[in-house]
C-alpha cells in the first residue's frame, strides 16, 4: 500500500476542497438508494485520498497531488455513468424484494376482507363490478415472473442468466418497473371493484377489514407507483 509516510502537518495542509468538490460532483450525478450512493462516495474518497498521499510522498505539493488524483479517477460524469448500472440494479432489486415481501400481506388483507364479508369471490361468484377481478389476476401473472427475473438478474444468478439478457443493463430496472406497475394495476382494480361494490350496496359490510385492505392497497399504489417511475427514469438514463 502506498503513501503511509505523509506527516500529520502535511496531511493537515492538504487542501481537501478539490477532492470534496470532485466527490460532490460525482454524487450529484448518481441516482439510486441514498445509502448506496453514500457508500460509493465514501469508497471513492478513500481511494482519492490514498492516491493523493502517494503523490505527496513522490514530492508533489498537496494542491498538485489533489489535482493529479482527481485526474487519475476520471471526470465525474464518466465515473457516475460507470456506477449507474450497478445503482440501477441495486434499486431494482430493492423494489422487487419489497414487492415480494409486501405482496402476500396486501393479498391476505383482501382475502380476510372477502372472508369476513363473504364477498362474491368468496362464494365463487363475480357479479357486477367483480367481473373486473380477472384483471387483477392477469396483473399478478405479469408481476410474479417480473419479480422473479428482477431478483435473479440482480443477484448471483445474474451471471448464470448469461447471454444478452444477463449483460443488458436495462433489464433489471425494466423488470422492476413492470412488476411495480402490475402491482399498481392489481391494487387499483381491487379498489375500483370495492368502490363499485359499496356503491351498489349489496348486503351488509363489515368495513374494518375492507378499510384495512384498502389502506394497504392505497399505500402500495403510492410506493409501487413511485418506485416504478424511478426505475423507468433510471432505465432512460442507461439507454
Amino acid at each position, binding site marked *: *500500500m*502506498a503513501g503511509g509516510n505523509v506527516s500529520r502537518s502535511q496531511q493537515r495542509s492538504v487542501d481537501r476542497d478539490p477532492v470534496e468538490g470532485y466527490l460532490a460532483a460525482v454524487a450529484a450525478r448518481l441516482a439510486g438508494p441514498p445509502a448506496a450512493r453514500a*457508500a*460509493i462516495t*465514501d*469508497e*471513492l*474518497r*478513500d*481511494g*482519492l*485520498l*490514498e*492516491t493523493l498521499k502517494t503523490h505527496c510522498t513522490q514530492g508533489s505539493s498537496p494542491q498538485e497531488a489533489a489535482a493529479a488524483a482527481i485526474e*487519475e*479517477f*476520471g*471526470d465525474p460524469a*464518466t*465515473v457516475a455513468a*460507470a*456506477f449507474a*448500472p*450497478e445503482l440501477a*440494479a*441495486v434499486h431494482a432489486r430493492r423494489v422487487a424484494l419489497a414487492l415480494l415481501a409486501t405482496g402476500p400481506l396486501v393479498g391476505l388483507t383482501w382475502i380476510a376482507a372477502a372472508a369476513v364479508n363473504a364477498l362474491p369471490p368468496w362464494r365463487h361468484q363475480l357479479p357486477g363490478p367483480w367481473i373486473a377481478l380477472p384483471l387483477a389476476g392477469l396483473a399478478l401473472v405479469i408481476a410474479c415472473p417480473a419479480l422473479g427475473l428482477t431478483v435473479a438478474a*440482480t*443477484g*448471483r444468478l*445474474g*451471471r448464470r442468466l448469461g447471454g444478452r439478457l444477463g449483460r443488458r443493463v436495462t433489464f433489471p430496472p425494466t423488470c422492476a418497473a413492470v412488476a411495480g406497475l402490475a402491482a399498481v394495476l392489481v391494487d387499483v382494480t381491487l379498489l375500483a371493484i370495492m368502490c363499485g361494490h359499496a356503491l351498489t350496496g349489496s348486503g351488509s359490510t363489515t368495513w374494518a377489514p375492507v378499510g384495512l385492505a384498502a389502506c394497504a392497497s392505497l399505500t402500495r399504489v403510492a410506493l409501487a407507483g413511485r418506485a416504478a417511475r424511478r426505475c423507468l427514469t433510471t432505465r432512460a438514463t442507461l439507454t
Partner: protein
Amino acid sequence: MRAEVLKGHLDALLLATLQDGPRHGYAIKEALRAGSGGRFDLPGGTVYPALHRLERAGLIRGSWSVVNGRRRRSYQLTPSGQRALSQERSSWQDFSTAVTALLGGEPWPAAT
C-alpha cells in the same frame, strides 16, 4: 493502456489481484498497475464500478473498516470467485497458447 483494451479480461484481472488476500480499491488498482509493469494503469472510475459488479455477482465480498478516520471498503474472493478465477485462468492459457502459436512467427502449415 486504455481500459477498453482490457474489455473482457478486467474481471479476471481484478479477481487475480485478490488471490493473495483482501485488498481495498486503491490497493487493487495499484496491484494491477504494478503487476503489469505499469501497463494497466486504470482510472479509479473504472476499477471501483467493476468491483461493485463483481460483488453483486457473488465473486468477491466487501467489508467496511475505519482507517485514519475514514471508511474503507476491502474486498476478498468468495469461493465462487476462487472457482471463477481458476476457470478464467484456464481458458486464458488455452487462448494465449493458441494465439501465440498463430502470431509467434512460426511458419504456418501448408494449405492442402
